[in-house]
């Protein structure tokens, strides 16, 4: 009975399948994800989200063909070509890694295959491709939330920014600085750190010496945990607003709860922190299926596959149909309502989560909608 209720809520909340007629042959959707390599955490979440969406589609409507792209662009290209071996699929789900998506973009355009992605790399939707649809809010969106929460809610006036030197870090850093500038705030200290850095004491100390009244982090999961821990050990009594890596339960688990007191993070969504509604239903289903906590990447991929299922339901049969459907539809997913801004950016909302220092569980402190003005 509980299972039935869960299922009912899920179907109602996502609106996947109203009027969806089961076809005899399931549509095979390639799911390209970095299952191994340094992005395996995010790639695993991507895979899980897609598989859960396929489960919830039911009736054999969609079949996911999960392929590991590792983290090399060349491998992603090879996997993409292999996925097309048996003919053009109506669409595919692309890897989260921006450099791989950039390598796939010209191929997607050459073949005319829509690629649904959760990569945040800003450039992807700025290159005029009609085939890229991004279901995770890009840096334009989440960094607006990051900056606004720091300045408008925490009243930070002299922030320091520590960011990763990777493409991910540089893109987020640029957007963060631009959004702070719009709010009339200039960072007093900025430093890029490579992902291999094992000690962030010097960057933290320089931030403090520069007079920072808040710390804005845009780092991967491990470095985020390291920065939070070392700031605590240095006795830095500054609010910390981190990038989306900090919302991931696996990142929080690296730290003692006391170290997390006053730490917040931006994210596209935070399903593990939802206490009711469709987000909670999704999180419960995810936990039951995979025995782990869901993150925003899993939910974004779930919603991407959900919107694709809805497009197929509405009669889309080939790549051109899917491309048109994705460009025209508004889709109420679990995380948010998705619609394109004309360039393939489908996600426009963000949340801020904060930790109270008593547990590893974050709570959603603020929700932002239409941060890039797309209604």
């Amino acid at each position, binding site marked *: 009975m509980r299972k039935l209720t869960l299922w009912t809520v899920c179907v109602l909340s996502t609106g996947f399948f109203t009027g969806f007629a089961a076809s005899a042959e399931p549509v095979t959707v390639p799911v390209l994800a970095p299952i*191994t390599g*340094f992005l*395996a955490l995010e790639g695993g979440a991507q895979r899980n989200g897609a598989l859960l969406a396929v489960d919830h589609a039911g009736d054999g409507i969609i079949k996911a063909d999960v392929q590991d792209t590792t983290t090399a662009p060349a491998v992603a290209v090879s996997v993409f070509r292999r996925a097309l071996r048996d003919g053009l699929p109506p669409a595919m789900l692309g890897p989260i890694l921006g450099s791989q998506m950039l390598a796939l973009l010209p191929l997607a355009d050459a073949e005319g295959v829509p690629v649904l992605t959760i990569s945040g790399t800003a450039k992807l939707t700025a290159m005029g491709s009609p085939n890229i649809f991004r279901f995770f809010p890009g840096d334009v969106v989440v960094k607006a939330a990051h900056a606004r929460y720091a300045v408008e809610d925490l009243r930070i006036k002299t922030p320091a920014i520590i960011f990763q030197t990777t493409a991910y870090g540089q893109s987020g850093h640029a957007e963060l600085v631009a959004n702070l500038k719009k709010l009339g705030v200039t960072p007093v200290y900025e430093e890029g750190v490579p992902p291999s850095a094992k000690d962030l004491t*010097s960057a933290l*100390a320089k931030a403090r010496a520069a007079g920072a009244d808040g710390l804005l982090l845009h780092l991967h999961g491990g470095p985020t945990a390291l920065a939070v821990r070392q700031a605590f050990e*240095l006795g830095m009594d500054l609010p910390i607003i981190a990038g989306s890596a900090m919302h*991931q339960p696996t990142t929080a688990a*690296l730290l003692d709860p006391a170290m997390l007191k006053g730490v917040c993070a931006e994210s596209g969504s935070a399903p593990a922190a939802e206490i009711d509604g469709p987000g909670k239903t999704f999180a419960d289903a995810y936990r039951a299926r995979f025995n782990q906590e869901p993150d925003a990447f899993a939910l974004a991929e779930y919603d991407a596959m959900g919107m694709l299922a809805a497009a197929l339901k509405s009669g889309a049969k080939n790549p051109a149909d899917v491309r048109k459907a994705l460009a025209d539809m508004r889709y109420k997913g679990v995380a948010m309502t998705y619609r394109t801004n004309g360039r393939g950016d489908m996600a426009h909302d963000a949340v801020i989560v904060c930790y109270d220092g008593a547990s590893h569980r974050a709570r959603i402190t603020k929700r932002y909608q239409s941060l890039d003005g797309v209604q």
Partner: protein
Amino acid sequence: MDALSLQLLFNGLALGAGYGLLALGFALAIRSAGAINFAHGDVAVAAAYVAVAGGALDLGGPAAAGLAIAAGAILGLSVAGLSWAPLRNRPIEATFIAAIAIGIVLQNALTASFGGAPQAPAQIASGGVHIGAVFMSWQALISLAAAAIAFMAVWAVLAKSQTGRRMRAAAEDPEIAAAHGIPVIRLAILAFAVAGALAGLAGVLLAAQHYATPGAGADYILKAYVAATAAGWGRILPTAAAAIAIALFETVGAALVSHAVAEALLYAGFVALLSFRPQGLGGEAKGKRA
């Protein structure tokens, strides 16, 4: 010296303890078996994950660390059995390509088993102590103590014991040593096991402070290789010292310039060193180099 400098020095030494243990094992395998074990970093990471698994089973930090050391030794033996022993009479490239392959297998096995998220093993001791404005975590202090004990033990065995003298003889000229009844292969395999145990200790100490990810071995082996080359190929204790210097450069150098510039300067300095002294600072104890 101000508080920040002291803090950075302490952090650098604690990081250097881990790097030094890694490099010590790496150089031991070079010196004793002529083997460039490119799986050494992955062995350290795999051992750290064994400690993570131990923590999940409610083993305390010390027991989990012991398990990691044992796992490192077993993995070291496995590397010897799979990549060195059967290929030792082939061109040297064969052994290190085989070791790289083993490392990749380990990485992917860890990803499949534990996922890609950073993980931390149970700490041997949590918390720390403030001495003035300098924070010293117990875990970092234990790392320093463990490394100091391991360095002295390896030095004592190599310099003072019959086994150490035989190891050195076998390394200098395996054929003459074998002719004198020294069990060259057995000693080389023993060196792999000890190197693996050191990697296991390094892995668990580094992961407790800096977290473990399945792919972290690549960075570890790079540091060990640079240290071995800079110190002089096959020079065991100087290699460990060079690894500590690398860690100090990473932490203190980052304060003087920035992390990105310090990393670039480290490798630029390495290239410059090789240009002027290709044999490394101490000269080569072992004549072969990859």
